């Protein structure tokens, strides 16, 4: 086929015009994406600022309610009706308190303001208290919560970041209860290894998690069944907070799950000294001096 120079030039300029148009379309899309990205960043930062600001405004009245409910329970100790009511109020306020702690610790994690506070605790009693605080919720589904302790007494004492430990275990428990079938059982066990690592396992016999979803459950706001008719409560933050806290404490979280048979979550936390010890690098070679005059 023979093409004249003019035809060739025309064809080329046509194609050039087309690619220019495609390029300008792409630039427009790109600019829109950048704008969108800015807006998303802004709303993300507004949200986390908002949360850290309202913290006290919410916690103070809630603590007052919890305290006053306890007082009423003591004053009216011999009135069965009031006792039932106050225990209901306590159960609900405890649930609210748990959810709020979750939200605030998420805000702290996102602001990079988490601190480690390690204390020596009697693990057995801490875990027993935690399990007890969920008995009320478990009873609604006729679930039994079983806590298995190591037999050696020494294993029951550990140095942990108490608050974070509580939040981690509470979330695993709440999750196990939520996804258990009525009348089942949830088993909690713990041990302290020779290397000082603390291992906590929570086993449920509920719906289980399909292999393809097993990583996704740690993302925030993810619940596997979505929509207005979803069967499960919660905001989908629990496991993402748990994961972020475990990461912060330089531990690990893993799960073994079979759909229809249940899930076993295992959290391993290294000894607190790893978090606490700022002198762990004392033998670290020479110190180099970097001040303002050092050239980059």
């Amino acid at each position, binding site marked *: 086929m023979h093409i004249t120079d003019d035809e060739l030039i025309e064809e080329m300029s046509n194609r050039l015009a087309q690619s220019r148009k495609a390029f300008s379309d792409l630039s427009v899309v790109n600019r829109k994406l950048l704008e969108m990205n800015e807006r998303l960043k802004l709303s993300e930062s507004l949200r986390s600022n908002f949360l850290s600001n309202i913290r006290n405004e919410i916690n103070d009245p809630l603590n007052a309610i919890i305290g006053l409910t306890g007082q009423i329970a003591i004053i009216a100790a011999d009135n069965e009706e009031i006792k039932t009511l106050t225990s209901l109020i306590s159960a609900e306020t405890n649930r609210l308190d748990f959810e709020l702690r979750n939200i605030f610790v998420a805000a702290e994690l996102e602001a990079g303001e988490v601190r480690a506070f390690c204390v020596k605790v009697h693990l057995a009693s801490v875990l027993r208290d935690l399990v007890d605080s969920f008995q009320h919720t478990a009873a609604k589904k006729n679930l039994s919560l079983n806590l298995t302790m190591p037999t050696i007494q020494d294993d029951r004492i550990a140095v942990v970041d108490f608050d974070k430990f509580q939040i981690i275990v509470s979330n695993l428990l709440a999750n196990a209860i939520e996804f258990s079938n009525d009348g089942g059982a949830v088993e909690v066990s713990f041990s302290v290894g020779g290397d000082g690592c603390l291992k906590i396992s929570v086993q449920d016999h509920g719906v289980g998690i399909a292999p393809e979803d097993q990583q996704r459950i740690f993302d925030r706001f993810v619940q596997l069944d979505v929509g207005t008719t979803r069967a499960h409560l919660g905001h989908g933050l629990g496991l993402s907070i748990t994961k972020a806290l475990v990461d912060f404490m330089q531990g690990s979280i893993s799960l073994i799950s079979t759909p229809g048979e249940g899930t076993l979550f295992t959290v391993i936390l290294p000894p607190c000294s790893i978090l606490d010890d700022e002198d762990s690098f004392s033998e670290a070679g020479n110190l180099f001096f*970097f001040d*303002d005059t050092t*050239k980059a």
Partner: protein
Amino acid sequence: MCSDIMVNKHFLFPGTIFAEPFEYQISTILGSCIAVCLWDKAANRSGMNHFMLPLWNGEGLATPKYGNIAMEKLLNKVISIGCHRENLVAKVFGGANLSGSGLEMYMIGDRNIMLAFQMLEEYRIPVVAKDVGGRVGRKIIMNTQTGVVLVGKGRAAAST
């Protein structure tokens, strides 16, 4: 140099940020992680972050464990304690590719370094000191008022 007398100390954990308007001695331990110090020479105030991975993937919590979030939050934070953006200078440390960590092939250290310099360039904050890369961990100690940073090298740090 870094006297221990009456100076508040803060140990910076991975994935956190620290900036206060008073004199502090911030220390942290770095492997493949990066710590960026932003210092306002005029105000004599500074802050530091410590991130582990370059980019937040949009899932999980948006914590300063990720470089892009840590850089932005550190900048906002030092400005909130009274630093002026145009006075800021940066010092960047860490980003080693630790041998034996099993993570060498992902080149986390290198990617962290790239992210830090990229974002500082975007913010137009000059880098006045750096000690990055290599194969060994670091311990750094910074005085927030003088902006002086001490770097200890020589031993492979934990996987942070």
